[in-house]
Each structure stands twice: as structure tokens, then as C-alpha cells.
């Protein structure tokens, strides 16, 4: 699993200990360290940037409220990923997710920064296709492709056997490919 190594000048665990002792500066440092990564993770799982900012705010609030429950039995990053995953799932059940992403794609310019119109269109198609995946498949795609987590670490995080996750991941990629093929994504030119 990726994350800030505990060997850095001030480890995540040390910052959490200082937060537990009531040091707000330590918590601020943790937020600065993890906010970009968790923001991206939540955005991939839960939709457009506006929602991701809300979720990110909620994630670090939950982290702060749960600071006394943190134990160093596992890595801090695994604990944080679990919090984020549960938060995204809850948000999904509350219904504040994909429709807004799809509406945003339909309504006008995307909130995702892009360079060219064609590339922007492809990216919106990709984002929409990702958004339409079932929750379990989307989680495994985001964790593998964006978070670059291996299947063993993913199995520990999700509590699901790695073999099951591999099958789920393969099924998700095939589904995405079929969706994009139906939208006219051209097959690559064959080398002669």
C-alpha cells in the first residue's frame, strides 16, 4: 500500500500521537500530507470535485473525532483508506454521487481541467463509464489503477480474497471496454 512512509522525519503515527495529546499543528500537518491523495481517491470513488471537497472535509473531521481510537496495530494509511472507503459508500447510499457527475457532464463544461475538446470528451466518457460501474467493481478499479494498490493489500482493506478481487477487476475492465466500444472508441491500428 502506498502512503507516507513511517520513516519520514515525522511519521503519521507520531503525528497521530501528538494529535491525541491535543496538538492541532500535528493534525494540520497530517491533513496537508494526506489531503491531495484522499481528495483524488474520494473524487474517483464519489464523483465531481465539489462533492469530493465535501467528502474530504468530512473525512478529516471523522479522522479528528476518531483520533483517540487510533492504535498503531496497523498502518495509518490503511486506517485512513478504510475511513475514506466507508465514507464514500455512505455517501453513495445517501445518493449524492453519480447523477451529479452525469448531470455535470450533460449540463456544460466539466469541472475536470482538460486541454483539448476531443480529449475532454474522451475523459468525460471515461469518467462516466467509471461512474456507472457497480460499487464493488469501481472500488477495485480505483484502488488498483489510481491508488496502485496490489491485490493482497486490497484484500486486507476490503476483507475479500485477492482471487475474488482479481476476477472483479477483470470483469470491470471488460465492462468499461465494452461501454466505450459502444460509444465509438476506435480499436487501435494493427501493426503490419
Amino acid at each position, binding site marked *: 500500500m502506498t502512503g507516507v512512509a513511517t520513516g519520514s522525519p515525522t511519521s503519521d503515527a507520531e503525528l497521530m500521537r501528538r494529535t491525541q495529546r491535543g496538538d492541532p499543528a500535528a493534525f494540520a500537518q497530517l491533513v496537508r500530507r494526506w489531503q491531495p491523495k484522499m481528495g483524488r481517491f474520494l473524487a474517483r470513488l464519489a464523483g465531481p470535485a465539489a462533492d469530493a471537497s465535501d467528502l474530504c472535509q468530512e473525512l478529516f473531521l471523522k479522522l479528528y473525532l476518531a483520533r483517540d481510537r487510533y492504535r498503531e496495530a496497523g498502518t495509518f494509511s490503511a486506517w485512513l483508506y478504510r475511513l475514506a472507503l466507508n465514507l464514500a459508500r455512505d455517501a453513495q447510499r445517501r445518493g449524492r454521487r453519480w447523477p451529479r457527475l452525469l448531470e455535470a457532464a450533460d449540463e456544460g463544461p466539466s469541472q*475536470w481541467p482538460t486541454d483539448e475538446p476531443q480529449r475532454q470528451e474522451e*475523459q468525460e466518457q471515461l469518467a462516466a463509464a467509471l461512474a456507472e460501474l457497480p460499487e464493488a467493481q469501481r472500488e477495485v478499479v480505483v484502488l488498483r489503477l489510481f491508488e496502485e494498490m496490489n491485490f493482497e493489500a486490497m484484500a486486507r482493506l476490503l476483507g475479500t480474497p485477492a482471487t475474488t478481487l482479481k476476477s472483479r477487476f477483470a470483469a470491470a475492465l471488460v465492462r468499461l*471496454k465494452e461501454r*466505450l*466500444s459502444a460509444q465509438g472508441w476506435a480499436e*487501435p491500428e494493427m501493426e503490419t
Partner: protein
Amino acid sequence: MTCNAAREQLPLFVTGDLPSEVAADLTTHLQSCAACQREEGMLRRLVSGLGQLPEPETSVDLPAIFREAARQEQRVGRRWRNLALVATAVAAGILLLLFVKVEIRGGDGQWVIALGTPRPVEKPSPPAVQPTPEPAWKQFEEKLTALQENLDLVLQDVTQRDGARRQEIAALRGSLESVKQSAGAALAATQRDVSAMYAALFPGRNPTSGGEDR
């Protein structure tokens, strides 16, 4: 490797998650199968496209987090304090009931609350246990046993009485014998007295002849 088998492995192949020996087999197959190569190309484009999705910008309002956390922790603290107050009141009530001995009872359409030691409640005596009737054969057996005991007692009594009679008879016989002996002795003494008196009155005569010897 068949095309179907190859396409099942392609998603994990393009992300480098296949074991090396399976990946080698698949590579061999791809070298000779244009359709699977196109499939692989689509998947690689897809993975590459996902990796190039722009990263959304997010922001976090740290002071707002601290304010909200303080508010929620205060609310939780108040909730716990209220809960503690309720628990204390309940505990005090229970102690009051235990030490002051408040008696609360209901029934017969009324509730009674009384202080002090509760009156002993008279408990109804348990109903007498009715003896279960014994079977007829057992009664008959008991009667037989009682009869046998009575017969034994009668036999013992008869034996005792018979022994006593025998002793009485033996005693009577002894008495009769002694009377007989004393009567014989008295008769002999009388005969001697009579003979002496006859000889004195009638010298020369035989007392057994009854007249004068002339």
C-alpha cells in the same frame, strides 16, 4: 492457449498482475492472434486513459474541522453527562427502595405504597396430602400377617397355660401323697392306741376275735 482463455487473462495482463508463466503463454498467443492483439490494445488504451484522467482539486477547511469537532464533542459530552445524571437518579431510587424499605404492591384494583418493614404475608398452608389407596392384595396380605401373629400369640398362651396346669397337677399329686402318708401314719397310730386300750380293758382276749375267750 485459446482466444477465450487469452481474453480472460488480458485485463490482468495489461496491468502486470499475471504470474510470469501465464503471461509468457499469453504473449506467445498474442504474437499469432490479431483479434486478441486488438483486444489487448483496447484494454491498454482504456487503462492509459483512466490513468490520464485529470486530478480534481479538493480543499479542506481546517478551522471548520476544529470548530465542528469541538461542537460535536461538546454535544457528546452533554449527552454522556445527562446519561450519567439519569443513571445516578435511578441508582439513588433503587438504594432508597432498598434501605427505606418502601413497599409497593398492587392488586385488587388498588396500589399500596408503604414505608417500613413489610408485614409478613400469611402463606396459606399447603393442602393435606391425601394418602393414595393401597391395592386390595396388599390389604389382604396385611390381614394375613396380623392373623398369623394372633395365632402365634394364642399358641404361646395355650402352651403357657398347659405348663401351669401340669405344674398344678404335679403339686396336687405331691400334696395327696403326703396326705395319704400322714393318714396311713395316723391310722396306724390309732390302731395301736385301740389295741393298747383293748388289751388294757380285756386282758387275755384277742382283740381281733370280738368276744371273751372262754
